[in-house]
């Protein structure tokens, strides 16, 4: 090796050392770019070494070329490395960077009321199962709220309701089940799958678990061979959509004047059984009152307490929060 050759090789190593040190100290993209030009550009400190090549003996050109290329490679890799580390540090890579950590200029979004979103969620699930949603009156006739639902005037089951009456003798509906009479008449010949939701009233003093209004969702399905097994399947579908796939339900025999068999349904939620809905097979008297022949058609019905489901799902401990409409409460959902 000639001295010339050794010189160039040593210079290449040194130029690479200098370049890498500078690159690693660079703090932004512009600086990196000017370092790239200074070392790897046409007249860059490393590139320029190749000019000495003409004085190198032919048999040593390979070794020199290798050394210079190695220096180039080190500088290039250092630049890439530094780019990456600058990018991942979160610090701005541009010189005139803005402070991206300043808070965004927000227009605060509104929120849905948790009862509305609960009703909406149940509604959407049921629509997916082929049910049609509609709203029905809140001020009802005694027939639609009671008599048509197999609860005549002197039936003791009326004790289960604390009913508000209007001066003209109408009833503030005590349950959304009152929709059945409308739905049966509106939909006519089965198959019928109908659902509604909304406010109901009860003459009840206000405390942590009682309020003069509450919300329910009620559904019916009627056809030639709708069965209790179908009801169970439907409610499992609904409950698993609401509470998670590994849901457990418990069907307890119960009584509603408008269904037989009747079942209260409890859901196992965070270790305890919570009563969330009432259900059953529609009474023949109800089908008849709605104009369907009970020998030909059968169906199921269920009703869910929306306030209760909302309270369970969100862990709300006092029903009054739902109706106080306090900003700090509504913003949470």
């Amino acid at each position: 090796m000639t001295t010339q050759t050794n010189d160039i090789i040593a210079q290449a190593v040194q130029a690479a050392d200098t370049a890498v040190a500078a690159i690693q100290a660079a703090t932004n993209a512009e600086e990196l770019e000017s370092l790239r030009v200074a070392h790897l550009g046409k007249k860059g400190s490393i590139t320029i070494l190749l000019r000495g090549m003409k004085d190198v003996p032919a048999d040593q050109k390979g070794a020199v070329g290798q050394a210079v290329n190695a220096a180039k490679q080190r500088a290039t890799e250092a630049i890439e490395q530094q780019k990456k580390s600058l990018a991942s540090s979160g610090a701005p890579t541009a010189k005139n960077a803005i402070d991206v950590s300043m808070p965004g200029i927000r227009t605060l979004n509104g929120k849905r009321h948790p009862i509305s979103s609960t009703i909406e969620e149940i509604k959407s699930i049921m629509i997916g199962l082929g049910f049609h949603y509609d709203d029905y009156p809140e001020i009802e006739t005694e027939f639609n709220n009671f008599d048509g639902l197999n609860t005549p005037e002197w039936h003791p089951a009326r004790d289960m309701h604390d009913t508000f009456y209007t001066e003209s003798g109408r009833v503030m509906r005590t349950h959304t089940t009152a929709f059945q009479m409308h739905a049966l008449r509106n939909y006519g010949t089965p198959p019928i799958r109908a659902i509604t939701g909304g406010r109901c009233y009860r003459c009840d003093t206000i405390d942590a678990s009682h309020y003069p209004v509450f919300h329910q969702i009620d559904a019916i399905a009627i056809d030639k061979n709708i069965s209790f097994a179908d009801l169970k399947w439907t409610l499992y579908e609904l409950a698993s959509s609401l509470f998670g796939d590994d849901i457990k339900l418990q069907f307890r025999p119960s009584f509603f004047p408008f269904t037989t068999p009747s079942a209260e349904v409890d859901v196992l939620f965070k270790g305890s059984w919570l009563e969330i809905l009432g259900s059953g097979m529609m009474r023949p008297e109800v089908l008849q009152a709605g104009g369907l022949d009970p020998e030909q058609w059968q169906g199921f019905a269920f009703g869910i307490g929306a306030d209760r489901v909302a309270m369970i799902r969100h862990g709300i401990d006092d029903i009054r929060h739902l109706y106080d409409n306090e900003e700090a409460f509504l913003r949470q959902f």
Partner: protein
Amino acid sequence: MLVNTKWLRQYLQPACSDEQMVNAFSIIGLEIEEHIDLAEELKRVIIGFVRDKQPVSDNNNLFLCQVEVTPGQTVPIACAATYDVPVGKGVPVALPGVKLPTGVVIKEGNVHGHNSSGMICCDGELGLMAQDTGLRTFDDESLIGKSITSAITIDESLVDLNILPNRPDCLGTIGVAREVAAHFDLNLVYPNTELPDTGKTDPSTATPARIDEPELCPRYMCQRITGVKVAPSPPWLQNFLLAIGSRPINNIVDITNYVLFEWGQPLHAFDHAYIEGNQIIVRRMKPEESLTLLDDRVIDGKTQPLVIADANKPVALAGIMGGANSQTDDQSTDILLEAACFDSVCVRKSARALNVSSDSSYRFERGTDPNRMLIGAMKRACSLILELAGGRLNGSLTDTYPTKREPKQLKLTPERVSSYLGLNLDAPTIRKSLAKLEIEADDTLNIHAPTWRVDINHPVVLIEDIARIVGFDQIPLQPRDTAGTLGGRSATDQVRQQVTGTLIGAGFLECRNLPLEPGDTNHAFRPLTGDPVKLQNPMRADMTYVRTSLIPGLLRVIDHNVRHGATSYRFFEFDRTFEQSGESPIEAWSIAAVAAGPIQQAQWSGDRSSYDFHHLKGIAENLLDQCNAPTATFQHIDLDGFTPGATAAIKLNDQTIGVIGQINPKILKSSRFQLPLYAFELNLESFITNFDDVKPFTKLVRTPPVTRDLAFVANASVTYAQLEQTIHDAAAQIIARDAADSSLSLQTVACIDEYRGKQIPSDCRSLALRLVFRDPTRTLTADEVNHVMEHIQQTLTATHGAELRV
């Protein structure tokens, strides 16, 4: 209904465990209101040793005991003479502050001038079935101060069952036991109803009963028993009543109560000495009659309730309560025991009309069995009276039963049952299930329903019984095998989705308010066409009316939030408003919003402006656009709830569809709220009919628009709407005249500035408008637009005296 499980177990053969039974209740359909675990509840009842016992001087029914409740320390406790509290022995003591399972809370007391610091408890008071004397005693002095649960084994509990209205047969222990027996496949053991032989009786001394209202009283039975000795009941009976929260009175009354709780059949015992004419008549009360009831209330005959009468007077309010004029007391020796069946609606109506109720009326209202249970109860009571109060049957049993109630006959098929439940069941399984409930069925499922099951009025009720016995958990999850239906939502619901979405996007929080109002704002926010809907029976005066507007509810939300330090005031509600229109109410979907204060939260950049009329109007206009009503107009209106001059009616095709304005500050409750508050309400019902019309596509225009700004000063009394109309008219006029063959048009007019103040007369304002012209077929020239602009300017000046500013 309170049931002691140990008592219940007597009716089951073989008996099942306490735990099994309690778990079974809800599976059977007997809802547990409360389960009182006595072993747990009685932990605070301790054993105290009686060291001294002295009669209380002025009352020979009372003693004052000194009871050692912790070693070496005695407290005074008064006790009644009912139980022989033995000096020197340990007894159960509840100290002040302890709550007994039957609900009694022990308090520090003063009895005839003596302090009493606790209660010596007999079994019934502890909720326990009685043992021996009914007062447990202890000899081991090391137990002083220890819990009684450490000294005795408690294998019973109290269960408060909520018997649903369809199953009055379970309002007696036998009925509950029948259900439990069916569930566990046990035998139901009926109590002994054999009558002891009390010698020959003369049939003619019996008391005959006549039923004048056979519809209201299907069956009346009575038995005269003579020579009874009225006295306190034996301990087991007294304690039984105490344990289920009932007060012992005397052996005769206690037996009727006991049998009521056992069979679910109410009974009544008259003192025969007061039954005039040795005769019972079941009839309606005459308007001029009156009757004093056992609870001393006097009722009159105005509503003509059904009564039990003797030859001359009413002696009981049928099925509800006996009369004071014929009640049994310590002196009675000759009693007349009644067991009857009354029409449930009749009893319910009387009980309601007279506001009297009792354990008896509760059962009759729901329905009782005129056959087996009635006869069983009658015999059981006679047998117990003869056993516990002595005497003999006097005359034969009177049984007036004009129309016999036969078991209902029903027909089921296995196909019907299987199709209903979605579970294949064959006839033998169905038969066997029903038999467990004492419901008879033959091989072809012809069924005789026992008459105590008043709820069985249709074969489907039997399907429920079958399902309960087979177990609801045996029914599979099985999706329908029927024609599909298309799910979907109504037009109103689609509007709800979209407009609530718009308001949430604009930063509004959705509220749900109580729609019951005091009524003072019924007319304040909306011109009504009908009357407000008023409640007959409001629970509070301030909840008398059903709301006519959503705004009052939102104002309450503002008040509540001011009190609780809210930081922004933007709320809305999508719901119904109500009006009475003749007989029927009108329910109309509406949307209302209120807003006040800064549009954006305080932050380092951005809009600092606060809500005003036009901000809210912009939101209302967005909703109107969304509901295909962009042509709605705004016109001044005066309403009490709003500030005069800052309120507008929103009109569409001459119909008022909403209101917008600044809320009258006087109407807000909270005086702390100083910000101007704005609200609008749209009655969606009146214009959402065309909501889901499919919107047609308009061809996109590729020719450039020409934009011209126009600034002028005009009298402030000329409205913007008038000016805009004039501009549109003028443009249309000149184009029709001079460019009729072109497609040039004035596309939009926008207001880009308003100015009042210096340099402008005080009754005037300066406006800057931006006009956009276009022709979809070609590029416009400056000249032709200038020509139209000139005409517009001249017309503005001519029509409104507008002065152009350059």
